[in-house]
């Protein structure tokens, strides 16, 4: 057994004055521990990192890029734990929109006989429920993620932007799983998607950006005002009725269409139906306007979120 004093001398004995006698410090003798660190050493004269009260606005996307691996791990964790300790596991990703589709087809379709652009009700509703359930889930997760991860936030540094981004992206896996049912449905009803189906990723991207744009604002607000978490479920419910999920856009009076069209999710959902089945309204100038609005909201959200970041650990 060896003892070390704080200068790193090995204590081997005690002389007459009862003072410690030691061998020279061991530091020159590289251990495995040290040898390993050399390979990962940072250039010695990297510019110093400055820590000061923040001034001005800067999104610091380069830093976000440097933390992409953490983003990946957060998404990976979300996916890993989402269906832990459930019996049917990831089948829930399919069942949730599928069961809602059955309910909608029965009540809005068979009973209320709402028009469906001539599409079979299951296809008509599933086309809308797929992007909608992704969007509502992503928005809710992004809103709560800062509060849920407050322990992490108060103990360790990373760009806080990683949190809402991971919350929004991790829902895409459920989306992909549930998408397989959509393909099955389309095949079952012998619907052949046209070339417009290639635009699907674009519509999905708009849904992601919309969820992120709103999510950034809501999660930063939620960190300070916990009211937000109670408002969001209501907001999502209201939003669903303001989007063509349960009905067709054709039901909306012509003179309100322009307001309706500014809802980006209306564009996304209508776009999904149109791209897959060729039925319904093709995206027009209103769609472009709503997409532009989302981009503005997103950029504003990024700045707002970054401005909150410095003190978020104090208030959350």
């Amino acid at each position, binding site marked *: *057994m060896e*003892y*070390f*004093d*704080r*200068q*790193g001398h090995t204590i081997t*004995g*005690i002389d*007459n*004055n*009862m*003072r410690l006698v030691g061998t020279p*410090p*061991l*530091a020159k003798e590289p*251990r495995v*521990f*040290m040898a*390993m*660190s050399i390979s*990962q*050493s*940072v250039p010695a*004269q*990297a510019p*110093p*990192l*400055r*820590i*000061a*009260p*923040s001034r001005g606005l800067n999104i610091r996307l380069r830093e976000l890029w440097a933390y992409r*691996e*953490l983003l*990946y*791990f957060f998404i*990976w*964790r979300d996916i*890993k*734990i989402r269906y*832990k*300790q459930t019996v049917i596991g990831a089948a829930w990703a399919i069942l949730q929109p599928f069961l809602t589709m059955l309910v909608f087809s029965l009540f809005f379709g068979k009973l209320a006989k709402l028009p469906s652009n001539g599409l079979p009700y299951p296809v008509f509703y599933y086309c809308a429920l797929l992007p909608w359930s992704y969007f509502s889930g992503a928005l809710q997760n992004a809103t709560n993620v800062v509060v849920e991860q407050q*322990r*992490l936030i*108060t*103990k*360790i*540094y*990373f760009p806080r932007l990683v949190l809402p981004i991971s919350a929004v992206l991790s829902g895409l896996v459920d989306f992909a799983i549930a998408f397989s049912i959509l393909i099955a449905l389309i095949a079952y009803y012998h619907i052949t998607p046209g070339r417009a189906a290639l635009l699907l990723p674009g519509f999905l991207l708009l849904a992601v950006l919309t969820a992120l744009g709103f999510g950034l604002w809501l999660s930063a607000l939620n960190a*300070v*005002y*916990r*009211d937000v978490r109670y408002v969001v479920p209501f907001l999502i419910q209201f939003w669903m009725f303001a989007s063509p999920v349960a009905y067709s856009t054709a039901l909306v009076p012509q003179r309100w269409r322009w307001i309706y069209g500014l809802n980006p999710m209306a564009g996304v959902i209508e776009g999904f139906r149109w791209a897959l089945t060729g039925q319904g309204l093709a995206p027009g100038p209103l769609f472009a306007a709503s997409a532009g609005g989302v981009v503005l909201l997103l950029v504003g959200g990024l700045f707002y979120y970054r401005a909150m970041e*410095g*003190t978020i*650990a*104090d*208030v*959350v």
Partner: protein
Amino acid sequence: MNPAIRVEGLGKRFRIGQQQRYLTLRDRLAGILRAPARVLSRGANGTSHGRKEIWALREVSFEVQPGEVIGLIGRNGAGKTTLLKILSRVTQPSAGWAEICGSVGSLLEVGTGFHPELTGRENIYLNGAILGMGQREIRRKFDEIVAFAEVAEFLDTPLKHYSSGMQTRLAFAVAAHFEPQILMVDEVLAVGDLAFQKKCLGKMDEVARAGRTILFVSHQMNQIRRLCARVAWIDAGHLRMDGAAAEVVSAYESSMSRGNLGEALDRRTFGATARFLKWHFEGGAKGSNPYYLDSLGEVTVHFDLRVSTPVYHGHHGIALFNANRELIWGRATDGLRLQPGLHRISYTFPSLPLRPGAYFWQVSLWQDEEPIDQWDCLPEMIVATPNFQHPRDEWSGVLNVPSEMRLAELGELECAR
């Protein structure tokens, strides 16, 4: 060479309202209803919401050179953790600035980001990523981490089935194998069982000897003494003292003991027969500071007193108390005869194997059961000797006995003898 850490006038202000866990609009509304006048007048007096501001840290400046191991001590709430949080960028300063040269790893808590539903293996990767390790780096160190944590057979068991000791071991193992150039550690060695703690301390020693810069917060003064050459004492948000570990720790301990003792350190004199004047170690124990003990070798301590009227049946008592006013040692001598004048009472000890810290002598003089003078000697005695004790305060005991530990193989024959 640039300093590893440079801190200049750093401050952190909290509004008391901000420290509240969270605000709801209802609270805000209730506040307005309760004190409408204050809300209305807040524009006038300038302070927002009329709230008080607290500086958790104020005007703190220091530099840490690469390779230095510096300890941060102070009472709870003095601002140590706030300083660490600012330097590790968890929160922003309100004033001043800091510059950091080199990669930073901070360990404000063991096991941050562990998820109970994930397996040990998965948590190692997740925790590593949160601490800032790349995936490749974790993969390279994976076996080492598992061996250090001693959890090899439970790697694929969800963390929630681990005992808390196992969780701690795993968490520390991941953190210990994280190798930034600057490591900031907050009180994390206070967890885990003894054997593991020893292992952790050994690892910290290793990190320190590998030339990394370490900023270490602990309430275990023995840990601080053992690991750090330099110590900064933070008191009520200010940097109160910054210097060699032994000096700062002793000053801190004696300040804490004064807090404990209140006004107890004093003198009771009866009449004008005699009076103790001063005390000191012989030769000033190395000449510099006569109240400072830094060797476990032979030591002589002197107590000087002035006698005004003769003492014929004198009785002298001496006692040594620690900072908590616990009696360490006492002795009495009877039948003293003292003529008027100056006298010196001396004690020689082959060694004073005391746990490092602050102590005080109490000397007294009596005549025929009647007290003459009793003095709690000021200043206190500071013991800053090489340490042979357990690293944890609660196991180190009151004595710091120089000892040598050996391990030898023993044959059956020798054992039987």
